[in-house]
């Protein structure tokens, strides 16, 4: 089990308040504590994906069947979702995405930079609202605001969780 950070506990609390039932994710260090909280909750159904766009399709099915969900992924996964985002957009289905950022502040891996820098514009061009957390103390407020617009405003929305919140990966350097 990854020990959940306070901001991850805040996200979990907000997801529960909005009755999120399906949690789809590709394993990710930044989301690890939140994933474990969701997996330990027997009222949530956690699903490990092979690739992120599966989660976009799955959560479309979830909403057609009356359940709310969330897709947890890293910034690199956003690129995998582009065509599948046409599904919630064309059918008017709510979709909440929480995106842990790589390829920005203090990134040491050049391969993460293209998609990290592309995350917000790609999401916007795909019809998603984009929210952002750069200070952990804003977490509950930003995620709550995103949830309300997504689930009560029937929108596609993504929250970028910045590397300043997660901590830059260093591989021991």
């Amino acid at each position, binding site marked *: 089990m990854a020990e959940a950070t306070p901001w991850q506990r805040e996200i979990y609390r907000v997801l529960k308040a909005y009755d999120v*039932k*399906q949690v789809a994710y590709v394993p990710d260090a930044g989301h690890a504590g939140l994933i474990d909280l969701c997996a330990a909750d027997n009222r949530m*159904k956690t*699903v*490990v*994906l*092979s*690739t992120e*766009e*599966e*989660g*976009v*399709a*799955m*959560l*479309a*099915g*979830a*909403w*057609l*069947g*009356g*359940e709310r*969900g969330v897709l947890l992924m890293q910034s690199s996964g956003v690129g995998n979702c582009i*065509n*599948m985002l*046409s*599904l919630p957009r*064309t*059918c*008017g*289905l*709510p979709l909440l995405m929480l995106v842990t950022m790589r390829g920005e502040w203090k990134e040491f891996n050049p391969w993460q930079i293209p998609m990290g820098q592309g995350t917000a514009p790609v999401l916007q061009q795909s019809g998603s609202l984009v929210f952002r957390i750069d200070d952990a103390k804003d977490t509950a407020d930003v995620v709550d605001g995103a949830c309300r617009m997504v*689930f*009560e*405003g*029937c929108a596609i929305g993504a929250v970028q969780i910045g590397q300043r919140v997660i901590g830059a990966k260093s591989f021991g350097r």
Partner: protein
Amino acid sequence: MTMDRARAEAYPLRRREVVASLIGQRTDLLLVGGLGAPSNDIAAVGDRPNFMPLWGAMGGAAMIGMGLALAQPSKRVLVITGDGEMLMGMGALATIAVKAPGNLSIVVLDNERYGETGGQTTHTSARVDLCGVAEACGIRVVGKVVTAAELEAAKPAILEFAGPCFHVIKVKAEQEEMILPPKDGHYLRDRFRTAVLGAEAAKL
């Protein structure tokens, strides 16, 4: 191994008859149709509110079925899609095998062709065996159907058995009359949710 183009022209089963035989008059199935010919096959049976025919989202049909199956565990969810659509989202078979929703059944109508783009051969016309992929992933019930007798024998598994179930039905490569399902996504959403949820569908 080269692609065998002629083989699929000799399969005895015809896709429209297969779909009509599977769905019959059942109104309790929640049905997702993969884009292209499978959605047209479903429309040919007679469009219904519990049908969700896709016009895009290629590679996503099985996972839409998965989310639906998790949300509605007491209902049978049937995904009818094509070989090209399934090949694009093959990782979903691993995801579905691991989560293993018992009420999800996937049927691939395999004519070994990309029907919407001019009938080019797919990988299944060569050596790729989607049943082998599903079995290797650990999908609980896997079956291959080529003949009418095999279809009858497989129907209980496709429609009733605890799953997840995955069947490849080899169908004749042929050009069918174009019968299009509705394509307005908001209309499909509203009628499907109303069929599943009743008045609750109006609530966001």
